[in-house]
């Protein structure tokens, strides 16, 4: 997330919005975004309904055994079609912003 904030201007330049989603509450997201200086949307899916819809639920992996999201990244085009997906097999290894930017650029022929 910090790495995406650092590259935010490159997403802005391409007209691509950056959006983060987790089970964290709106309050947690507000505090965290302020502290980290996140200038993109951080959405709260507190009951994990959207996370479930995307089949990204990690059962019991949160504090006190709550269900949370597993890490995953999607690049979606302006028509709502998915153009690139990253489903890690290691919680510590997330997509880097360069991967999403490259996926966008390959599709738009630069």
């Amino acid at each position, binding site marked *: *997330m910090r790495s*995406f904030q650092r590259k935010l201007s490159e*997403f802005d330049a391409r*007209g*691509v*919005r*950056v*959006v*983060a*989603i*987790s*089970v*964290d509450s*709106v309050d*947690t*997201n*507000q505090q*965290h*975004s302020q502290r980290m200086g*996140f200038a993109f949307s951080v*959405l*709260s*899916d507190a009951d994990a*309904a*959207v*996370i479930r*819809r*995307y*089949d*990204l*639920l*990690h059962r019991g992996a*949160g*504090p006190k055994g709550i269900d*949370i*999201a*597993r*890490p*995953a*990244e*999607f*690049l*979606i*085009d*302006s028509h*709502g*079609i*998915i153009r*690139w*997906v990253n*489903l890690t*097999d*290691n*919680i*510590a*290894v*997330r997509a*880097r912003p360069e991967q*999403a930017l490259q996926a*966008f650029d390959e599709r738009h022929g630069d």
Partner: protein
Amino acid sequence: MKRKWNWPLWVGFVVAVGGLFSYEFFAQFPITRDFPWANLLFFGIGATLLLVGLFRAFGRPQLYRGKIFGSIFTAISVLLFAFFAYEIFYVLRQVPLSAQAPRVGEKAPEFSLPDQNSKSVALKDLLSPNGAVLIFYRGHW
């Protein structure tokens, strides 16, 4: 005759402990997070020093100290390494398969969720002009 201080045992133990507790630091950088090279290097140096120390302690016990505490240090270091390897190579890889997750070429499931300012945001509002990157993450709780 007073026996000598067996320094490789002490240094090796400190380096091995460092191998475990430095993970939080090295996890900040993709190159040392995606595969824990730096931590494994610490453990490797620690193991080498501990072995040197043990050879001294058991091979020339009249000259070097450390038969007992060297064995204890080594046992603790092995346990720390086992814990590290279990966490890094097993626990972190327990990720659900997500076989039904939407794939490339499919339409992204629609949603509407509150952002950090309590404003409701729908996926379709996020797609202009050129789409969006959705980042699902575990959360900060």
